């Protein structure tokens, strides 16, 4: 992202630059005069706010990393009610958190434009599911726009703000990793210097959403939604191109339009198909869609994740009595899983033409040969990661207590603890679920110790209500808070444990142990997981405590520690195995699986380039054969 951030504030309209989609969205927001931007980090959306916060002061806007997505939405929503333009960015799972206030915001309406940029993850690269957030737009009855490339990702922002203010409704902009993490050419526009003065005009009939107001606003919302459908007809990023005499039509939603163009090029069928490029995916521009439907006998609908538009179009065609073949995911022309690719779309189109497209038929056997040869490369905890030491300690503590044990996990780097050899967690569902699920397990008569692991950022995000629940309901659980001081998984954003804000201001550093005590937990301990014995002892003690207990395993994220050391000119002091003393038990390797270690000639070798000198392996070695230095 580095240099691209510099491009966010240059006022050189017309300049062509190479920009990541997420940064282009940030640029689009600045060009449109955004004043407030909020988010909780989540791949693949993090760079939107991650880049904006670096130029916030220069641009004279307010940017924050909020404690969770719901809070982020509510902060931006209030800003919008006070008349200023604001955006919230999140990944699809964040949308689940936003859902509650979001659905009501459609009833109150907004004043300053309010945009929710949501990044879906079709074939989950970094998420626990693939969900199509366009259903939320339908649920809330708000417009949803999909840009088709990086340029449009910038351009759509100004249009979305205008639409939001015209309709007085929040507007969703939906992207996927192929927009978010694609770099493409962007022609810059000019940056808005206009700053509105915030002013909240009280109106209890709108902003106090008691049921009597909700009944009135329900009708208002339906009226606005109908108006949104009218505006969609002329939305400037929609484009219908009817090919003379064409019997086949294609609707390409957002990014999928690029795959459609590529497919038609590969098939040499560019002039044989009528195409509707669709940016307004909710509500649909029905007249525009009908123009296409009534001109062809077959239509293929290409959209990412679920057949949302396809279902709508089936209903539309049925209502109009149109007799045409509608193909897409519901007809298995496109797969129900996987991310779309040009190959998948080309094969679907070829089938419609009665042709076949197998890009690599001749070499399929080689592919399978290669797949047999190429081992998977799963991600893992970094060399020296404090979470590895914490997991080792939890496993050893459970062994000592000798009553089995269930470890509920949570969302963060530490879910890499699932992989061998650690295999340390038994569940991982969503933000905060570790503690609440531990409560559940403890209440159904399971005799085993129940340990919940949760990172600092996730604890602030969603762990606290669950911890209060544990105390309130006498759930006999041990919560291990893995406090590395950063939201590391998504690229090291600061959080309340870091002591700095998104805009770089120093702030009060919150300590999870103090919050745990305030939640009513009586047994709270803080340890450095690099001290293996003390950590094991603390966890054993916590497990033996008769009421909810908390152990905070605190050590700064290794990657951040290395950065600080580099700035101070300190080099890591790696460890090595004394081969004369090593008994080849390989306990260090099999218990920790540190990326600095590998089995070599029956013994374990530590790679001095990778080792950061945490010393955890030296404490695990039963014969003390691992020592600092070579």
């Amino acid at each position, binding site marked *: 992202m580095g240099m691209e951030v510099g491009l966010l504030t240059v006022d050189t309209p017309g300049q062509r630059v190479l920009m990541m989609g997420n940064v282009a969205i940030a640029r689009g927001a600045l060009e449109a005069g955004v004043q407030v931007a909020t988010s909780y980090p989540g791949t693949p959306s993090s760079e939107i706010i991650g880049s904006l916060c670096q130029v916030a002061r220069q641009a004279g806007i307010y940017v924050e990393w909020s404690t969770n997505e719901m809070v982020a939405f509510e902060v931006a929503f209030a800003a919008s009610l006070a008349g200023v333009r604001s955006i919230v960015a999140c990944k699809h799972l964040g949308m689940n958190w936003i859902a509650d206030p979001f659905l009501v915001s459609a009833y109150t309406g907004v004043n300053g434009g309010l945009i929710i940029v949501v990044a879906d993850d079709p074939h989950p690269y970094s998420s626990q599911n693939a969900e199509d957030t366009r259903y939320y737009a339908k649920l809330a009855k708000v417009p949803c726009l999909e840009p088709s490339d990086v340029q449009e990702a910038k351009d759509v922002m100004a249009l979305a703000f205008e639409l939001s203010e015209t309709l007085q409704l929040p507007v969703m902009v939906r992207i996927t990793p192929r927009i978010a993490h694609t770099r493409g050419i962007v022609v810059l526009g000019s940056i808005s210097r206009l700053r509105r003065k915030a002013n909240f005009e009280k109106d209890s009939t709108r902003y106090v959403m008691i049921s009597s107001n909700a009944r009135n606003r329900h009708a208002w919302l339906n009226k606005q939604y109908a108006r949104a459908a009218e505006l969609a007809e002329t939305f400037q990023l929609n484009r219908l191109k009817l090919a003379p005499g064409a019997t086949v039509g294609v609707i390409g939603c957002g990014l999928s339009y690029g795959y459609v163009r590529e497919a038609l090029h590969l098939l040499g069928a560019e002039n044989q198909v009528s195409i509707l490029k669709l940016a307004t995916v909710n509500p649909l521009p029905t007249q525009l869609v009908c123009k296409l439907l009534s001109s062809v006998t077959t239509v293929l609908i290409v959209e990412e994740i679920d057949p949302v538009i396809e279902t709508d179009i089936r209903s539309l065609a049925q209502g109009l009595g149109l007799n045409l073949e509608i193909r897409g995911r519901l007809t298995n022309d496109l797969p129900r899983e996987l991310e779309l*690719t040009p190959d998948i779309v080309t094969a679907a189109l070829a089938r419609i033409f009665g042709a076949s497209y197998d890009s690599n038929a001749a070499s399929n056997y080689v592919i399978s040969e290669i797949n047999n040869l190429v081992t998977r490369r799963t991600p893992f905890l970094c060399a020296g990661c404090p979470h590895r030491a914490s997991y080792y300690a939890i496993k050893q503590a459970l062994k000592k207590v000798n009553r089995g044990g269930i470890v509920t996990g949570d969302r963060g780097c530490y879910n890499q603890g699932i992989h061998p050899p650690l295999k340390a967690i038994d569940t991982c569902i969503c933000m905060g679920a570790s503690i609440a699920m531990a409560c559940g397990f403890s209440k159904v008569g399971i005799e085993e110790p129940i340990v919940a692991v949760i990172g600092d950022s996730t604890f602030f995000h969603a762990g606290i209500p669950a911890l209060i629940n544990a105390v309130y309901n006498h759930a006999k659980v041990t919560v291990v808070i893995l406090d590395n001081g950063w939201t590391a998984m998504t690229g090291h954003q600061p959080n309340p444990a870091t002591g700095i804000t998104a805009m770089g201001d120093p702030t009060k550093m919150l300590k999870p142990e103090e919050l745990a005590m305030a939640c009513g937990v009586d047994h709270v301990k803080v340890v450095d997981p690099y001290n293996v014995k003390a950590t094991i002892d603390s966890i054993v003690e916590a497990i033996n405590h008769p009421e909810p207990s908390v152990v905070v395993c605190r050590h700064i994220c290794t990657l951040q520690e290395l950065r600080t050391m580099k700035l101070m000119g300190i080099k890591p002091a790696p460890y090595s195995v004394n081969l004369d003393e090593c008994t080849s038990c390989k306990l260090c390797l099999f218990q920790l699986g540190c990326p600095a270690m590998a089995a070599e000639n029956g013994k374990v070798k530590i790679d001095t380039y990778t080792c950061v000198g945490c010393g955890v392996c030296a404490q695990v070695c039963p014969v003390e054969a691992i020592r600092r230095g070579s």
Partner: protein
Amino acid sequence: MVKKSVDLIISGVGGQGVILLSTMIGRAAINEGLDVKIAETHGLAQRGGSVVSHVRIGRNIFSPLIPIGQADAVIGLEPLEAARYVSFIQPGSGVIIFNIKRVLPLPVRLGTESYPSIESLITILRKYSSCIYPIDADQIAEKVGNIRTSNIVMLGALAASLRLPFSIESLKAVVMRDAPKGTENANLLAFTLGVRVMKHLIAGRSL
């Protein structure tokens, strides 16, 4: 069908510089007024996962992803990672360049899985293409005196391996401009040595 773009797959392990190389190529292309699309996988890149980037350069690029069998080259900063994405190259004529320095996946380090020999990888890759260029980029980078320049060695090798729609000099200028302060000369040397080693390989066609 006329191919309308130069398509490159750049792959490696998180932290090796896949995204840096892709962006450098993109910047060189934009200087020539070309269209560029670079689709990256981020996600768990920082944590040692497999990283791939699709780089497309041409007059008017539609899809950010390269269709299977269309890439002009696969540049692997690690041998396994080159092999993993080889189905993207044009059978027969596609160029496969990889750094022979292995980064062992966790199961290999634990001894539960094995890492294929470079020879067996090459035997299979040959079924795809005759243009296979293994390079000891780490050894060259050590000679340069900065092991972290091995990815720039690979960039130089790429630039000399096929006809890119911009000159080697303009890519070199981007390398100089984008290199971290103080490492410009090391990176320039790494790039030049990469170009040289590839020219030798092509002349010798030793594989």
